[in-house]
C-alpha cells in the first residue's frame, strides 16, 4: 500500500479534515452549545428521522420506522456495547452476539414461562448477561490478541448451539409470544412500531450517556492504558485483569439490553437469530466507524445496518457491493471513518488498534525444572 500517496487514500482526506475541524470546534465549544447540539440531535431522532418525508429517501417502498428499530437501532446499541470491549479496553471479542442472545432469551424465557413483566425481566436479563460476561471473561481474559478472539468466537457458538439443543427454552423452535413492554398510556404491539422506536431511542441515549461517563472516568483511563500497553498498565498499578473483566461485563450488559428490547419487538426468537455473522457485522460497524470514538461507532453501525437494506433493489449483488465497500474502506482508511485523535496516534505507532494483536499467552506453567532440563 502506498499510504498517503494513493488517490483513493486522498479521496478520504476531506472526511478527515472535516472531522478534525468539527472536533476542534467541539472541544472549544461552550457547555451550553454542547447541550444545544445534544438536544437538537435528540429532537432530530424523535421527529424528523422517522418522518415519512425522510423515509422516501432513506428507504423507499419499505417500512422505515421498523428498519430504524431493527437493524439500525439494535446495531447502534450493540456497536456501542462492543465498542466498550474492543474500542475502549482493546479486547477482540468475536462472540458478542452471545450476550445479545442471552438478553433476548432471558426476556423470552422469564416472560413466557413465569409471566414476568417486561421491565422486571429486562433487569434480570441485564444481570444475567453481566454475570455471563464475567463467566466468559474469568477464564479467557488471561489470553491475549488472537487467542482471546478464538475463544470468544467459540463462546458465541456455544450459546447458540446450547439454545438450539435445550428444550426448556424451545430448542430449535425458539420461543413465541415474548411479552411486550408495558407503559401506562402507551400500547406496545406488533402492528405499531412507533412506541418501540421511542423506546429504542431512549435506550440508545441512556447507553451513550453511560458509556461516555465511564470513558471519562478512572475506569476509562485504565481501559485506555490496557488497550495501549497491557504490561505497562500493570506496571502503573492498574489491576488489568479486573478491569478487563469489567469491560466484558459492561459490554455484555449493553448487548443484553439490546437483545431484550429486540426480542420484545419481534416477539419471536429462535437460535438462528444469533449467528456468528452478526458478531462479525457488529465488529465491522465498530471498526468501520472508528473504534473507540462514540460518534464514529454510531455512524458505522448506522451505515452497516442501513446500506444493505437500502441496496435491496440490486438483489443478490448488494452483499457483494457492501463487502467491496468494506474492503476498500479498510484498505484506504484503516482507522475508520471518524477515528479519535488518540486512536490515530496509537495506530501510527503500530500498537493499540485492536489490543496488542501479538500472539502472546500469559500462562502459569507448573512444569518442574527437573523435567525441563531433560
Amino acid at each position, binding site marked *: 500500500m502506498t499510504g498517503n500517496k494513493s488517490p483513493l487514500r486522498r479521496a478520504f482526506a476531506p472526511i478527515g479534515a472535516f472531522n478534525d475541524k468539527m472536533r476542534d470546534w467541539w472541544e472549544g465549544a461552550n457547555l451550553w452549545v454542547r447541550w444545544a447540539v445534544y438536544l437538537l440531535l435528540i429532537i432530530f431522532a424523535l421527529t424528523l428521522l422517522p418522518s415519512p418525508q425522510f423515509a422516501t429517501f432513506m428507504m423507499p417502498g419499505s417500512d422505515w420506522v421498523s428498519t430504524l428499530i431493527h437493524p439500525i437501532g439494535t446495531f447502534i446499541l450493540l456497536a456501542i456495547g462492543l465498542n466498550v470491549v474492543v474500542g475502549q479496553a482493546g479486547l477482540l471479542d468475536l462472540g458478542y452476539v452471545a450476550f445479545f442472545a442471552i438478553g433476548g432469551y432471558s426476556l423470552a424465557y422469564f416472560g413466557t414461562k413465569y409471566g414476568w413483566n417486561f421491565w422486571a425481566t429486562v433487569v434480570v436479563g441485564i444481570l444475567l448477561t453481566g454475570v455471563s460476561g464475567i463467566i466468559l471473561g474469568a477464564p479467557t481474559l488471561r489470553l491475549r490478541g488472537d487467542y482471546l478472539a478464538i475463544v470468544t468466537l467459540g463462546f458465541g457458538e456455544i450459546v447458540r448451539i446450547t439454545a438450539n439443543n435445550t428444550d426448556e427454552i424451545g430448542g430449535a423452535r425458539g420461543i413465541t409470544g415474548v411479552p411486550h413492554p408495558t407503559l401506562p398510556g402507551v400500547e406496545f404491539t406488533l402492528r405499531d412500531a412507533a412506541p418501540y422506536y421511542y423506546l429504542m431511542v431512549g435506550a440508545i441515549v441512556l447507553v451513550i450517556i453511560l458509556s461516555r461517563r465511564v470513558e471519562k472516568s478512572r475506569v476509562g483511563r485504565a481501559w485506555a492504558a490496557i488497550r*495501549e500497553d497491557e*504490561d505497562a498498565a*500493570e*506496571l*502503573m*498499578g492498574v489491576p488489568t485483569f479486573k478491569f478487563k473483566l469489567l469491560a466484558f461485563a459492561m459490554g455484555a450488559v449493553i448487548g443484553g439490553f439490546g437483545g431484550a428490547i429486540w426480542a420484545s419487538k419481534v416477539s419471536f426468537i429462535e437460535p438462528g437469530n444469533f449467528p456468528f455473522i452478526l458478531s462479525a457485522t457488529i465488529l465491522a460497524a465498530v471498526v468501520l466507524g472508528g473504534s473507540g470514538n462514540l460518534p464514529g461507532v454510531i455512524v458505522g453501525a448506522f451505515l452497516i445496518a442501513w446500506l444493505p437494506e437500502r441496496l435491496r433493489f440490486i438483489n443478490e449483488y448488494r452483499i457483494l457491493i457492501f463487502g467491496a465497500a468494506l474492503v476498500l474502506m479498510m484498505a484506504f482508511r484503516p482507522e475508520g471513518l471518524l477515528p479519535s485523535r488518540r486512536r490515530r496516534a496509537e495506530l501510527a505507532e503500530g500498537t493499540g488498534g485492536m489490543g496488542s494483536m501479538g500472539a502472546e499467552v500469559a500462562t502459569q*506453567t507448573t*512444569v518442574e*525444572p527437573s*523435567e525441563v532440563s531433560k
Partner: protein
Amino acid sequence: MLLEVRDIHVHYGKIAALKGVTLEVEEGEIVTLIGANGAGKTTTLKSISGLRPLTSGRIVFDGTDISKLQGHKRVLAGIGQAPEGRGIFPGMTVQENLLMGAYARKGTFREELDEVYELFPRLSERRTQFGGTMSGGEQQMLAIGRALMTNPKVLLLDEPSMGLAPMLVAQIFEIVREINQRGTTVLLVEQNAMQALQLAHRAYVLESGRVVKAADASGLLDDPEVRAAYLGGDLGVD
C-alpha cells in the same frame, strides 16, 4: 536488604528462562544486571515486578515475601519499572502518561510532576504531545519519568540505552545517577555493559538463566573474562 531474589526459576511454556537466579539489592545502591541477549535479564526484572509468574523461588521486598503478589500491588509496595521497549502509551499525552504512573495513588501530584519535569526539561516542553509521536530518547525519558511517578523505593530499568545514540545514552545514565543520589535505589538491566558498570555500585553477570558472577562494578570492569565477553575488550590475550 531492600530486595532479595532467592533462587528463582521461571519458565516460558516448557523452556526455562531462569534456572535459579539469586541477587540482592541494598537500599541506596545502583545494581546492574549484565549479560548477552537471552541470558534472562528482562525475565528477571519482569519476575520482580510481577509480570511473569515464578515456577519456584522467592522474592522478598522490604521485608515481605511478594512472590505471589499481583503485579499492580507490587507497584504500591514500591517497585517501579520502566519496561523493555519503553511501553509508552502512544495515545496519551506526555502529561497523561506521567499521571498514569500515579494511577494507583490518590491525591494531586503537582510536586511529583514538577520533580519529573525538572529532571527531564525535555518532557516539560512536550507536555501536550502524544507519547507515540516522540523520539526514542524522549520516550525513554518518559518511561523513566512515568516509573518515578509511581513513587518507587526501587526503580527497575530495562535497557534504557536500547536504540539510542551514544550522547543520549550518556545523558540518560547521568539522570539515572541523579535519581539515585536523590535516594531511589536502582536495579539496571543493560547490554551496554561498559557504561552500566561505570555507573553501578555492584553488578551481576547473567548467563543462560544463571548468575555466573557477582562483584563490585569496578571489579568487574577489570575482570579479564568479563572484559572479553561483554566489554569488547582485549579477548584476554595480553
